């Protein structure tokens, strides 16, 4: 079976800095993979490689093979904009556009040239429902997105990502700026979304990694130290470094 996401001998440099060292990792479809490790270990760099966001950094250089559905995402013929449509991204801080709730979710469709009003309205509603936000905003769709709470804004950003129908959703600490109730909602959402999407999440919250993910990858100083079932990582990791990190002995 072809892995949904695969990294083969991935090396990343930012100028002379060797940020990722020979990373090999396979991710199955419809699973949640948590990337953990101390700051600067390369987990966010690795996450961003999958939607080619690092391309925007001048000194970035990548070697090795990175595939989604078996296709090389760094092949010359790849249309990067089309690729990013298939690989959605949710960031640490909610970043809605200064537009209405409706326009935020419809944005991706409109910039892709879709003008069919009924289709757009249906997609907005479906995306907001998938992001577990519809019930809270259905009566104020044309109000500013900034009127929403932080947790609602983050779910709005998730809805905006889902509207363009990606198959992979990348999340970079999506709940680190949220209160516990909003965090719980995002986590519940991740559970629901994995039925349709393949999710990769960077988190500094060990309990969150335990709660939401099927697999966990521990990165340290640019290396993938251990990758296993989340339950194994948090009960009986095989590598001492992993044990020391997750139990708080170093970081």
């Amino acid at each position: 079976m072809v892995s949904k996401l695969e990294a083969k001998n991935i090396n990343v440099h930012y100028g002379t800095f060797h940020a990722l060292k020979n990373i090999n990792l396979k991710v199955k479809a419809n699973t949640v993979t948590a990337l953990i490790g101390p700051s600067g270990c390369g987990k966010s760099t690795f996450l961003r490689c999958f939607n080619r966001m690092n391309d925007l950094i001048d000194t970035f250089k990548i070697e090795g093979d990175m595939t989604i559905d078996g296709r090389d995402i760094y092949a010359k013929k790849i249309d990067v904009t089309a690729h990013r449509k298939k690989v959605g991204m949710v960031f640490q801080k909610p970043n809605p556009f200064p537009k209405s709730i409706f326009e935020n979710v419809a944005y991706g469709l409109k910039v892709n040239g879709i003008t069919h009003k009924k289709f757009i309205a249906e997609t907005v509603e479906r995306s907001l429902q998938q992001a577990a936000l519809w019930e809270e905003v259905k009566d104020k769709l044309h109000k500013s997105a900034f009127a929403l709470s932080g947790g609602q804004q983050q779910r709005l950003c998730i809805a905006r990502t889902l509207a363009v129908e990606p198959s992979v959703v990348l999340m970079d600490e999506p709940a680190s700026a949220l209160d516990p109730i909003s965090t719980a909602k995002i986590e519940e959402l991740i559970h629901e979304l994995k039925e349709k999407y393949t999710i990769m999440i960077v988190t500094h919250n060990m309990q969150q990694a335990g709660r939401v993910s099927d697999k966990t990858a521990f990165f340290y100083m640019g290396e993938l130290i251990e990758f296993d079932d989340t339950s194994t990582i948090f009960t009986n990791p095989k590598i001492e470094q992993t044990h020391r990190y997750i139990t708080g002995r170093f970081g």
Partner: protein
Amino acid sequence: MIHIEIELQKLKNQVNEMGSLVGKQIKKCIIAFVEMDKNLAKEVKIQEKRVNAFELKIDRDCENIFALQNPVAGDLRLVFATLKVNYNLERIGDNAEGIAQYVMQAQEKFDKKLLEETRFQEMADNVLHMLNDICTAYATDDTKLARTIFQRDSVVDEINKNATEIIAKYITENHSKALAALYLLTIIRKLERTGDHITNIAEEVIFYVEGKVLKHGKKDIPLEG
């Protein structure tokens, strides 16, 4: 030392204290039984309340560590195992109290010849040493020492198994001493159960140190090192 390490060390210290108390309880109830010392038996019964208090305290401390420290991996296994070690030590304490209770009820000294025939003292010494060693193994994370328990418990099991026939024969020949003989059989059963609890603790020590599950017939793993 990070905070959770301090909390876990405090937890282990308490279990070590409880283990030491339970060890004394078993030792005293055996002496009380062999010497028919009812005062010592009474002391065991009184001290049982301390064992129970330890159990409640350790349970509560484990609960607090789960809730407040969110232990994972080896730390999680230690707290999880400690809950079970705590339970097993408390049950050993119950057995000591049970033996003390029989001593208090007994009318006369137990027949020394029958004690010899059933290898009672050998059984009692074995159980005491096993208990002492398993407490050391828990305190020092010594899985090699914990693994010696399984073989030693089979000796205790064998003595228990043979006791039934010996005591049945004794009763048919000594009708008037049937009650005392039945008490002895019950006490032997309690020591056998104590051996089982010590074995359970050995499994927990290996579980939390090595992450290996040895329950239910998976003990025949060769000694390491």
